[in-house]
């Protein structure tokens, strides 16, 4: 016993010593402030960007490369029929308030998320679950109503983290999780500060204190990096400043990829857009590279379908509709509207939409399609475009991973309705074999590109800029997170 505490003390001293030698604090810039800090009760990406992997943990987690990794579940066993998952929980995992994590917490968290009164923003993640039972203190059995190829991935979302029943109601303001960092303060409108959780069950992070500072203004974001007030901006909102940072060796610039397919969404049921010729004409009228250059300062990968280019099942379909205004005009003539038409485009606030929309309006004008630009705030976009489908065109980045299935949803906002596509999705739902799943994904991509459902513009880049002496930040963002557990300062 004595020996053990001595060892612990030596280890602690070693940590303190190395902390003295090296810097152990970080100010990390984010564009948006989270509305609150409970990832199980809101869709705002900013929540996960603070708490995911740092403060809260789920049964599984998504790693830097998008793979499913064990988290609070040390391992699991899947039954042969794919309907039962038995999770073995970590020994020694505790919540930040000192209480131990047990199977009861897992049952509570999953039942809470799928309850009738649940306000979980991703309730569909839990749709497949039919029962959650605690077998003993550290074993949980989850029964599904149908096999689901995505179940372990789904449990790795921020919306599926494990919370304690005692603190679930107050997590919005005072989040209590199991992660390597615990909540310290939140200066509203300015920053959230996390500190190292020294009772963490796993490898303890190198940083002692991380401040997530919210700077929405692109110029202020750039300036704060230049002034070293902020040492890392995992996704700088000012692509125009990237060359400036690239030229400065004291900064590291990492252009990563995200899950954000940025598309010109078309209301497929509204004339003249119900005509595939018109949609194809628009696809030919648009010069993706000019949009990427003009709106994103060259940062972004052109896409030809609704799929992330870094995904192994991605099909390169950019060449299906190359920039060709003459062909666009011919297609419009074939559709019976040689003189073009007038339409509206509703643009949400992000600059990819607002600037991209300006470029697209200028390009479509060349083939006789005159767009009236209507800028809208997100609440209005959700109400008018997403819910009421009161729109002609819009630009939006679909940031959920692997979300081609939205094209099979009834009544989804772009109102695509295709029996062949839905058949592919149904088959995918019951397919667990990876190769077979990839084949179905490829088929799905080809169908929507053939139908020119939307105009696929580019994959949103992750414009990471940080101090060259920092290591361990994510280059890509397979989920919206700023995992700082492995971040350290090096000389």
């Amino acid at each position, binding site marked *: 016993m004595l020996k053990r505490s001595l060892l612990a003390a030596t280890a602690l001293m070693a940590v303190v010593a190395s902390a003295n030698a090296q810097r152990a604090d970080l100010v990390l810039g984010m564009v948006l402030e989270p509305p609150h800090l409970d990832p199980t009760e809101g869709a705002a990406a900013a929540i996960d960007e603070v708490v995911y992997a740092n403060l809260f943990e789920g049964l599984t987690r998504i790693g830097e490369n998008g793979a499913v990794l064990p988290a609070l579940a040390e391992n699991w066993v899947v039954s042969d029929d794919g309907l039962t998952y038995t999770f073995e929980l970590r020994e020694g995992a505790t919540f930040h308030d000192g209480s131990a994590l047990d199977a009861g917490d897992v049952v509570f968290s999953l039942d809470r998320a799928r309850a009738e009164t649940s306000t979980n923003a991703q309730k569909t993640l839990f749709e497949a679950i039919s029962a959650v039972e605690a077998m003993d203190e550290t074993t949980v059995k989850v029964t599904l109503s149908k096999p689901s190829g995505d179940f372990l991935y789904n449990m790795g979302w921020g919306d599926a983290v494990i919370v304690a029943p005692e603190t679930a109601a107050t997590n919005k303001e005072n989040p209590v999780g199991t992660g390597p960092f615990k909540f310290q303060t939140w200066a509203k409108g300015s920053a959230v500060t996390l500190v190292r959780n020294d009772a963490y069950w796993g490898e303890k992070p190198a940083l002692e204190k991380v401040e997530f500072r919210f700077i929405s*203004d*692109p*110029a202020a974001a*750039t*300036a704060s990096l*230049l002034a070293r007030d902020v040492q890392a901006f995992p996704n700088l909102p*000012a692509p*125009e*400043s990237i*060359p*400036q940072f690239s030229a400065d060796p004291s900064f590291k610039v990492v252009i990563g990829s995200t899950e954000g397919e940025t598309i010109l969404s078309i209301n497929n049921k509204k004339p003249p857009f119900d005509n595939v010729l018109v949609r194809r004409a628009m696809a030919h009228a648009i010069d993706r590279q*000019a949009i990427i*250059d*003009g709106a994103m*300062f060259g940062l972004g990968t052109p896409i030809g379908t609704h799929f992330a280019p870094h995904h192994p099942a991605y099909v390169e379909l950019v060449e299906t509709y190359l920039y060709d205004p003459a062909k666009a005009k011919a297609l419009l003539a074939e559709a019976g509207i040689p003189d073009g038409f007038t339409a509206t485009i509703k643009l949400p*606030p992000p*600059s990819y939409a607002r*600037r991209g*929309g*300006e*470029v697209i*309006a*200028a*390009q479509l*004008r060349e083939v006789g399609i005159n767009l009236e*630009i*209507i*800028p*809208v*705030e997100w609440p*209005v976009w959700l109400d008018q475009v997403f819910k009421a489908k009161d729109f002609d065109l819009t630009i939006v980045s679909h940031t959920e991973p692997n979300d081609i299935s939205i094209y099979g949803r009834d009544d989804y906002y772009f109102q695509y309705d295709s029996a062949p596509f839905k058949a592919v999705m149904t088959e995918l739902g019951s397919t667990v074999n990876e190769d077979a799943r990839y084949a179905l994904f490829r088929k799905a991509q080809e169908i929507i590109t053939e139908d020119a459902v939307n105009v696929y513009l580019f994959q949103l880049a992750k414009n990471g800029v940080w101090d060259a002496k920092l290591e361990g930040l994510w280059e890509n963002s397979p989920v919206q997170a700023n995992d700082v557990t492995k971040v350290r300062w090096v000389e």
Partner: protein
Amino acid sequence: MADSLVAPGHADWRLFLAKARANRSFQAGAAITLVVIAVAALSLFWTPWDVTKFNVPDRLQGPSWAHWFGTDHFGRDILSMVMEGSRNSIAVALVAVGIGMGIGVPLGCWAAAKRGLADEVLMRTSDVIFAFPALLSAVMITAVFGPGAINAIIAIGIFNIPVFARVARGAALSLWPREFILAARASGKHAGRITIEHILPNIANLLLVQGTIQFSLGILAEAGLSYVGLGAQPPATSWGRMLSEAQTMMAIAPQMAIAPGVAIIVTVLGLNLLGDGLRDIFDPRLRRER
């Protein structure tokens, strides 16, 4: 103050010109304002480059012979954009002043003629409007109607109404006890007719001065609204909008912020000088001091 501003009879143009010749503030202000308006008018027919054409490869160039003020992030000529933008900035400010005058002046004159309850209600209503933080209210108004030049005009115009109502009321009130008005009343003229025939011509000078000031404030207000993204929307542009675009590129392309900023300053300066000059010319007391 208002009392000394007004005199019976109509403005004497010869006297005005004589005074204007001696007033450097007026001359400078009028010259600048005329140039700005001329440039705005010119942009209706001609700009050095076509601002509807995007030329992305030529983006963010510094000043050159081809592009005197450089190019913006879409490769458009900034000089042409400033010319094009002048129209929106001026139109928004001017129409907002028009709304303020068109509604505020009749209200103010009416309150001055009626006194009593009507006056009290008008003054208290204008108190309520003045108590609202102007920009916040504009933000709320655009949240309801959506952003756009028209709604910027409404938002700025609403706050101009009580300004003109108060100025008109104050000046009219001081006129009513004057002898020539009393004489008109004695001859049996209706209050509305007296207002039109005697009050308005005598407060016109004052309204013109206030109008010039509100015009310059309108230019600044439009710039502020557009800067936070609530004013003119693309493909239209305005100086405020250009500044909001320029903001993010301050570090790499400061030329984008300089030209529209200077355009705003010059215009506002011109209007303020013009307003001051007009006041000096119309206000006998200030002249006495000189």
